[in-house]
């Protein structure tokens, strides 16, 4: 029996007798992408509609942001969009890096750079949203 065929048959045997495997990090990552994606579906499309469709982009001035952020609920909305967008996006970029960066060393460097950049921007964004004192 050819090796390839043998391994295929083994796989088939395994898949029919296989029990549900234990949830690991990748299982939670997969689940997180579905849940955050569903939440971002609403957050991102509402955000884009407000800033580009219902208001022209040139009217999104400092005063526009100050007026919106006078309501803490919009700050929560924007912060959720920031946090989930960065987590969903950087996890997606992690998949892309796993697929296309072939050497482990480069992959580690790329991921370290990407995680640091996302973390730094998360801090910058959070500080911006939380500490802004409106100039109404």
């Amino acid at each position: 029996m050819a090796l390839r065929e043998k391994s295929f048959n083994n796989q088939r045997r395994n898949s029919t007798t296989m029990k549900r495997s234990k949830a690991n990090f990748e299982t939670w990552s997969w689940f997180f992408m579905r849940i955050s994606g569903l939440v971002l579906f609403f957050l991102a499309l509402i955000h884009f509609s407000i800033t580009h469709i219902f208001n022209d982009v040139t009217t999104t001035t400092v005063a526009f942001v100050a007026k919106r952020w006078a309501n803490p609920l919009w700050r929560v909305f924007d912060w959720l969009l920031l946090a989930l967008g960065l987590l969903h996006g950087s996890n997606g970029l992690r998949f892309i890096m796993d697929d296309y960066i072939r050497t482990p060393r480069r992959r580690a460097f790329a991921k370290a750079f990407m995680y640091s950049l996302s973390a730094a921007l998360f801090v910058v964004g959070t500080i911006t949203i939380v500490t802004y004192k409106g100039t109404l």
Partner: protein
Amino acid sequence: MSTRSTVYKGKTGQWAFVLHRISGFLILMFILLHIIDISTINFPNVYASIHRLYGNVFMRTFEVGLLFGLTYHALNGLRVIMIDFFPGVIKNEKRLFVAMFSLSLLLTVVGGVIILKPFFTGRV
């Protein structure tokens, strides 16, 4: 299930995947840029000069592209969720892709007219 049924190379599933990946990557790049431009809010002059750029026709065209990326990624994401959680959906995978792609094109055209119009009517 035969192995054949799980192979989607060259079919709609592959293109849905490729577009999903490209749009996701570009949206993330925009988010990184957007966090930085909003962080200038405490320097109103800097914020104003950056945001004036968003009104020119090149940036408006870019925003229409962003709208397509966003609507496609959002709707195709729903398709992926449906396929993952409801096994029967895989049978309509192709029709679902055509529906989601068309809907995102339609939303982009409608939104694109609204985004680009002020530039051509000179109300910017």
